[in-house]
């Protein structure tokens, strides 16, 4: 089915001549998955079928105390200062955005009345603005009404460089205007297909103007509300001890009927992941535990007790191996891995292809990660609408040997292949983390069979991920041939994510290694395709471009994706909570409830 056929079908559905279900069936027949088909409909402006709510309680409260365990507790409660997800999760007990991302990467309104769309004109046809209508009758915990002024203020607050918010990236390039008491318009500098960034999900929490107005800019740290949040969320602030405890009590005036179910919430921090898993799955002391970075084997064993379950949420995190395109062993103008050089061996496509065949992803999944790391061929693994279906992965030592032989890499006396005097000796680095070291060993072993000598190097995580310009072992400097780590895609849209392969983003000494393109791969075709996708308003075409971007990266072996890492949480059997990989763990806290 080509693009035109698809478009024809979409028009039929839009005009009402074809049922949604029939459309999905037609696409399924030609090999497109149902979620992908629904996504296409949604992106083309056909209203999304709202998922049926599974929320059962018929009155607000009565659920007692909800005890959740974050083994790294929130250290601050201002969502715009949140350093990590733990802080965002904690802030989300009290604050809410206009809209949130569900498990499948779809938008759901929270403080907005509806999700903006093309049909009613709230999403401008030229892609340069989006208009949000606020839900009426929403009140802050202190009784003040929520208005468009608060939304505009949130933008002013977050974009002010002196305030030093961590969410400024979502706000600095847009302008926000108040239309009326309950309507705001977000204006973009150019056509922007991915408009759902400002005021959405983790970075989008709205803060009350009447409490923060005096604390914008340099004085931001002094705001008393930083420590005593006043939001619109399902729970009202009770107590906060950084790193240890966040507690809240039910908001009796919450803007959704019959919610929340629990009378109070207690978020306890500290300790380690394994004992947190025990407290939920084994002793049942707690109802929910976040980020279960525990070997799957242990989780399965704890689950057998029957007190709790492990919940996996697909997301965009990808553990991948990067191949250096520049020469890390030659110094040019005071930097190694300079773009003025070319990698002596990895610049040969045959070597890259061979390496990709030598990563035994299935074993990595089976023996190291289990349910918490799924072998994949793709760099973009979720949401379904952006996933390539043409890419494949394979572990085949013989084929790798064959490719190397054909390309002229012959075995030397020491069993290591060489060509034109250059030996296939590579240094492979990653951060210190047990699964990663096991993973390194698996790759080294396979490479040895194929005549590639790999030296393993592990760097402590605080060095590897630091921004210390003086340290040679950071991942951004990449003074190495291969390296592995997990990178995150925080939004269900890969645009920002795929920026890391564009030529302009190459990490160099000149930009203090702040550029995002770590592999230093430069490709004109990729750049053009990427630039085009940034302003392409046709969602189907744009999705195709981003899928192509992923395929270029994978097929050129710029990186070797290893496993995609879904979110993992533990909860007691009775708790009903949905986990989204595109939003905070507490994204739909108002909908959590326990079976009687």
């Amino acid at each position, binding site marked *: 089915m080509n693009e035109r056929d698809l478009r024809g079908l979409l028009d039929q559905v839009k005009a009402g001549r074809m049922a949604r279900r029939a459309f999905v069936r037609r696409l399924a027949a030609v090999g497109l998955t149902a979620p992908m088909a629904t996504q296409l409909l949604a992106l083309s402006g056909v209203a999304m079928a709202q998922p049926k709510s599974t929320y059962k309680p018929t009155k607000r409260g009565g659920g007692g105390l909800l005890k959740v365990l974050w083994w*790294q507790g929130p*250290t*601050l409660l*201002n969502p715009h200062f949140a*350093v*990590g997800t733990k802080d965002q999760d904690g802030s989300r007990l009290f604050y809410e955005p206009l809209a949130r991302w569900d498990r499948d990467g779809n938008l759901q309104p929270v403080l907005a009345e509806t999700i903006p769309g093309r049909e009613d004109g709230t999403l401008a046809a030229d892609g340069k603005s989006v208009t949000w209508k606020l839900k009426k009758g929403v009140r802050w915990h202190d009784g003040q009404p929520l208005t468009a002024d608060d939304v505009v203020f949130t933008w002013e607050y977050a974009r002010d*460089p002196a305030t*030093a918010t*961590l969410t*400024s*990236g*979502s706000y600095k390039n847009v302008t926000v205007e108040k239309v009326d008491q309950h309507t705001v318009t977000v204006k973009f500098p150019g056509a922007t297909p991915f408009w759902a960034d400002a005021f959405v999900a983790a*970075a989008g929490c709205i803060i009350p103007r009447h409490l923060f107005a005096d604390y914008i800019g340099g004085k931001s*740290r002094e705001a008393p509300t*930083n*420590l005593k949040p006043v939001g619109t969320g399902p729970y009202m602030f009770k*107590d906060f*001890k*950084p*790193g*240890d*405890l966040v507690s809240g009590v039910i908001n009796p005036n919450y803007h959704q009927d019959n919610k929340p179910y629990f009378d*109070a919430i*207690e978020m*306890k*921090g*500290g*300790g*380690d992941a394994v*004992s947190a898993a*025990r*407290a939920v799955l*084994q*002793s049942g*002391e*707690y109802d929910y535990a976040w980020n279960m970075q525990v070997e799957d084997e242990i989780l399965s064993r704890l689950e057998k007790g029957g007190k709790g379950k492990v919940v996996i949420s697909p997301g965009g995190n990808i553990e991948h191996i990067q191949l250096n395109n520049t020469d890390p062993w030659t110094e040019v103008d005071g930097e190694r891995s300079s773009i003025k050089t070319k990698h002596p061996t990895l610049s040969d496509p045959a070597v890259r292809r061979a390496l990709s065949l030598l990563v035994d992803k299935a074993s990595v999944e089976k023996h190291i990660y289990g349910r918490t790391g799924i072998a994949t061929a793709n760099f973009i693994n979720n949401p379904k609408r952006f996933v390539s279906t043409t890419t494949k992965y394979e572990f085949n030592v013989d084929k790798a040997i064959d490719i190397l032989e054909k390309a002229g890499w012959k075995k030397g006396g020491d069993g290591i292949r060489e060509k034109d005097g250059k030996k296939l000796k590579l240094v492979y680095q990653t951060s210190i983390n047990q699964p990663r070291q096991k993973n390194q060993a698996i790759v080294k072993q396979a490479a040895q069979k194929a005549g590639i000598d790999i030296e393993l190097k592990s760097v*402590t995580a*605080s*060095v590897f*991920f*630091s*921004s*210390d310009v003086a*340290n040679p072992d950071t*991942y*951004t400097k990449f003074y190495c041939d291969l390296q592995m*780590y*997990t*990178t*995150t*895609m*925080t*939004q269900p849209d890969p645009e*920002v*994510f795929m*920026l*890391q392969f564009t030529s302009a983003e190459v990490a160099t000494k000149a930009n203090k290694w*702040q*550029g*995002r393109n770590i592999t230093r791969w430069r490709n004109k075709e990729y750049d053009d395709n990427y630039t085009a996708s940034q302003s392409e308003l046709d969602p189907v075409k744009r999705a195709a471009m981003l899928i192509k971007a992923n395929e270029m990266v994978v097929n050129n072996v710029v990186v070797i994706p290893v496993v995609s890492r879904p979110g993992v949480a533990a909860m007691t059997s009775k708790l009903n909570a949905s986990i989204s990989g595109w939003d905070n763990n507490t994204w739909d806290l108002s909908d959590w409830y326990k079976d009687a």
Partner: protein
Amino acid sequence: MNRQYIIRRILIAIPSLLGISVILFGVLAMAPGDPFEELATNPAIPPEVRQALRAKFGLDDPVWQRYVHWLSAMVQGDWGFSFQSRMDVDMLILQRLPVTLIVIGASQILAISVAIPVGVLAAIRPYSIFDQIASTFAMIGFSLPTFFTGLVLILVFSIQLDWLPFVYRADVDATGWAFYWEHIKQSIMPVIVLGLAQAGALVRFMRSSVLDVIRLDYVTTARSKGIGERKVIVRHVVRNALIPIVTLVALQLPAVFGGAIVTEQIFRVPGIGSLLIAAILANDTPVVMGVTFVFACLVVLFNLIADILYGWLDPRISFR
């Protein structure tokens, strides 16, 4: 009590505290990493944001400048603010200090109240069955690291028997007796873990100290005067045998605080130890400085207390 002596001791403590702070600051500055590490792999946060934060918090200044800055603020009573929570360090510490003091205090009381009678009884009848058993347990007590005994207790009492909670909650939602009962229940394991490790060492010292004293002539004299055995032990033996124990308890307190860091982490006790671990992991320099400074002060303070107690136990030890 000689007030001048105490003042002099406090003045002497100042240069050592200064030295400690210089070394700590230097080590922390040399250690790799920065507080905004977590932002590194998140593509939604532009690198400029990270740079701006570093600049705002003064992380790009030379080390000596940062130290002078920290010190001058500290002298004026400003402990700085945490990079992680953007909250004042003294507030963070004050929030958590009581819990640490309660847990450590309770464990010390437990250790002393177990160790002194057991040590004395063991020494009165050396090599008896009681002595053998006491020595064995003392050996086990101080050989096993707290993280191990902690985990074993959790496995037995929380997971197998389900008697005690293993997550410490500072905010117990109960009132009256239930409130105290909940607090006692959750403190039992951390206090036992810390207390028994201490008691192990103390029993051994108490025993040998009593053995030394009990053979001295004045004890024989006291006995031959016809003073009752109980009175001899309590008034004449134990009081003199306690002098080295007091030193030991005071000098071991830093080690107890060290052990408490681990114990607090295991049982999620929100004390300054767990605050310190979290701050070190996050490269939160002002908090690390603040907490270690508090530790240093406590150590100096307890040394002073030990010296003062000497004078009370043995008036012959004078202060000059």
